[in-house]
């Protein structure tokens, strides 16, 4: 029987139509993927299901009964739990307190029973084979991936009939992703409906029984996963054929070393990294979560203090912070991990964000030459094909893909020719992903040197010339040529023996 049956759902936000007749039918016991570009209406739709917002028109049936939750708690009471991209945890509470937030086991005096709380949590974590998580740790001290896992636990603690996972794997490393895919299958087996939203087709293909595709706020297709190809899905999402997601890889690396790193160490996470990055090369960085990738990027960019020798274009330098590293063509520029908290001033305009790193350059006698700034901004908007109503649009109101393009533009304007890209396609729609990969290869061909970390191994396999795999804060293996495969990367990331 159909658990969720949504017909002709409409939703407008002011002048923008987010949903324009979306249909969605899913039954208990299946993993049902919801695909679509950013802005296709997926998020709006699941927010309606989760009770965060209400539909303007259309009908939604849950177990055959009308379903219009006025709040997330109503939706949860009816059996629909959602895990959103924007995490909803309280940083100062522990993992256990967050999972059972406002549903804690209480004593007769209405005080929380800590022991029961811990036991319940442990039982939950054991039951679903959660990755190791300390129930007593404050959430503030967890990584983004760990928080995402806690968020999933919190949703499961309500034993929902339908579990909605919105881009849940985008923050996870390969091993946790693997766990979540297996878990999703197990939950469906046990009779739950799992609505799975992801931009990664490979994952969707592995986990989903059926796929619903949204475009421009309406449903364009429903498929059995086995009966549809990736190309067909991409064409349906885009409304056109994307020639290919990954650009052709032409070896453009020269003999000239752009970046040479020897013995780079920081804290206990980075324990002596040796690395060579050539002009014109895209060097992939891989590894399980927490093996020093983040610290490597932050040390090179100079936001984390580190010891070791670093040479840029043959000259030894001390990395003293973004102010020094960003400067000019011998510098380094970073696309940071956290777009919203490290990359963009969300309440400022696209223009101000683009030129923030280079604004002193536009000043003549101290006064900014507004015309020159505007011209350069427009040039960059065109070059990167940033979709915005005007350069004055607030960065926070752009779609994820366009926000990431603004960060790329900001980085390119610094004229630094060594680029550090930390998971640059996280939460970015498939069309923009293709553009970003093409841009990376184009820049490499122009002599830029690119260090590229991705939590999606396939991206590394298809875009990088070589892949350096990190383990325990060191480079465990450097893979090149035929050996750049998911299999080899995972082996090197997990086992000592693969280092050979």
């Amino acid at each position, binding site marked *: 029987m159909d658990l969720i049956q949504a017909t002709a759902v409409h939703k407008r936000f002011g002048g923008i139509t987010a949903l324009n007749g979306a249909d969605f039918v899913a039954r208990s016991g299946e993993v049902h993927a919801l695909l679509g570009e950013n802005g296709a209406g997926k998020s709006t739709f699941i927010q309606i299901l989760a009770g965060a917002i209400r539909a303007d028109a259309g009908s939604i049936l849950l177990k055959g009964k009308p379903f219009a939750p006025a709040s997330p708690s109503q939706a949860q009471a009816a059996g629909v739990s959602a895990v959103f991209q924007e995490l909803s945890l309280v940083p100062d509470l522990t993992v256990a307190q967050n999972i059972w937030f406002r549903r804690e086991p209480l004593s007769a005096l209405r005080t929380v029973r800590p022991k029961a709380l811990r036991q319940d949590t442990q039982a939950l974590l054991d039951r679903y084979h959660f990755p190791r998580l300390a129930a007593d740790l404050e959430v503030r001290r967890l990584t983004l991936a760990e928080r995402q896992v806690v968020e999933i636990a919190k949703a499961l603690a309500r034993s929902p009939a339908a579990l909605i996972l919105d881009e849940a794997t985008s923050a996870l490393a390969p091993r946790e992703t693997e766990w979540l895919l297996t878990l999703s299958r197990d939950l469906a087996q046990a009779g739950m409906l799992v609505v799975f939203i992801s931009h990664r087709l490979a994952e969707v293909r592995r986990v989903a029984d059926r796929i619903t595709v949204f475009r421009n706020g309406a449903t364009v297709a429903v498929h059995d996963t086995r009966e549809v190809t990736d190309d067909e899905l991409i064409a349906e999402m885009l409304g056109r054929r994307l020639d290919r997601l990954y650009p052709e890889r032409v070896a453009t690396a020269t003999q000239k070393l752009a970046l040479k790193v020897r013995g780079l160490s920081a804290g206990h996470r980075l324990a002596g990294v040796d690395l060579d990055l050539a002009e014109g090369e895209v060097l992939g960085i891989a590894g399980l979560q927490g093996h020093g990738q983040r610290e490597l990027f932050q040390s090179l960019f100079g936001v984390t203090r580190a010891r070791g020798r670093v040479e840029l274009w043959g000259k030894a330098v001390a990395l003293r912070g973004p*102010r020094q590293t960003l400067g000019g063509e011998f510098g380094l520029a*970073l696309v*940071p991990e956290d777009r919203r*908290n490290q990359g963009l001033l969300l309440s400022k305009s696209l223009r101000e964000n683009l030129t923030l790193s280079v604004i002193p350059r536009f000043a003549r006698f*101290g006064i900014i030459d507004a015309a020159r700034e505007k011209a350069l901004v427009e040039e960059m908007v065109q070059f990167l094909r940033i979709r915005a109503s005007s350069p004055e649009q607030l960065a926070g109101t752009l779609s994820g893909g366009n926000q990431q393009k603004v960060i790329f533009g900001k980085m390119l304007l610094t004229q630094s020719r060594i680029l550090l890209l930390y998971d640059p396609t996280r939460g970015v729609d498939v069309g923009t992903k293709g553009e970003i990969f093409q841009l990376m290869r184009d820049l490499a061909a122009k002599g830029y040197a690119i260090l590229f970390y991705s939590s999606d191994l396939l991206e590394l396999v298809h875009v990088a010339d070589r892949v350096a795999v990190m383990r325990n804060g060191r480079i465990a293996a450097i893979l090149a040529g035929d050996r750049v495969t998911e299999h080899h990367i995972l082996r090197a990331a997990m086992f000592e023996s693969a280092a050979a």
Partner: protein
Amino acid sequence: MPFVARHRAILLAYLGMIGLLLLTSLFSPGFLALAHLRSMSVLAAFIGIVALGQTFVILGGGIDLSVPWVLNSSAVLLTLISNGQDGPLGWAMPLILACGGAIGAINGLGIALFGVPPIIMTLAVNVILQGGILVYTGGAPTAGAPPLIQYLAVGRIGEFPVVLIIWAVLAGAASLALSKTAFGRHLYAVGTSPTVAAYSGVPTAQTTVLAYVTCGLTAALAGMLLTGYSGQAYLGMGDPYLFTSIAAVAIGGASVLGGSGHYIGTIAGAFVLTILTGLLPALNLSNGALLIVYGVVILVTVSLASEAFPELGRALRRLAVRRPGRPRNMAEAIKTPAGNREDMP
């Protein structure tokens, strides 16, 4: 974004200012007379000058509570050095300004480099200065203000008060700095998100220090001008300017949390506060009651104007809208049809 939406808060401040002006003229005829407007503008100038530096600091995500005694110290120093004579002013004024700037630099360095919270840092500096001045003067009154300073504060060029001209020049410079210089961009960035600013290569520490230095400079300048205005320096003369400088910024539409606002708004804020001070005595209240009303009115004004307290602002706006089904006054209550009053005895 269209112009009106982008500058909504600032436009509101000016609308409020004009509305208040008209309202006040109803209570006290002659309020709009040129002479009265002029003397009011002079008072607004003192608030406006102190609030200039405060605007910079608040835009950058900080707050400067050391304003009162930077102001007071500079006033006392001026009278001590000059001893009522114009002669030493040539070097005394730059020296005092430099001292104000140096105090600002100490504030900024403590906050930007050593991570002391702005409230603690500037409050401590304020108390230290207060103590220093008390020790130095022994509480004794100092000599009067030199004539030149008095001229700057109360003199006129033609019909224009000199202090208004000083304020106008400073306002122009401040607006230029905020809108058209790299420093301005950096300041807004630091106030919006220090992390993003740092990741973008913005010199965050330098920007923060510069904002506090500006605040020290304007407080010191205001201290000297106020000495000229009242003819002497006295202990406690800076105290009212702590509240008013921050309130002017907030009424002017800036976020008290930093990152948005403009000095152009603060100017309106300074006028609003001055008009209020002029309006309240017309209510014939005792001094204490006057202060209470003043405090409440400012609280309400700020919460209406500022985006930092959206909840309070929303609640007040709801109250201001008449609720349907409830009589507004006695006359309406009586006119309500009997059918609606079944519960009445």
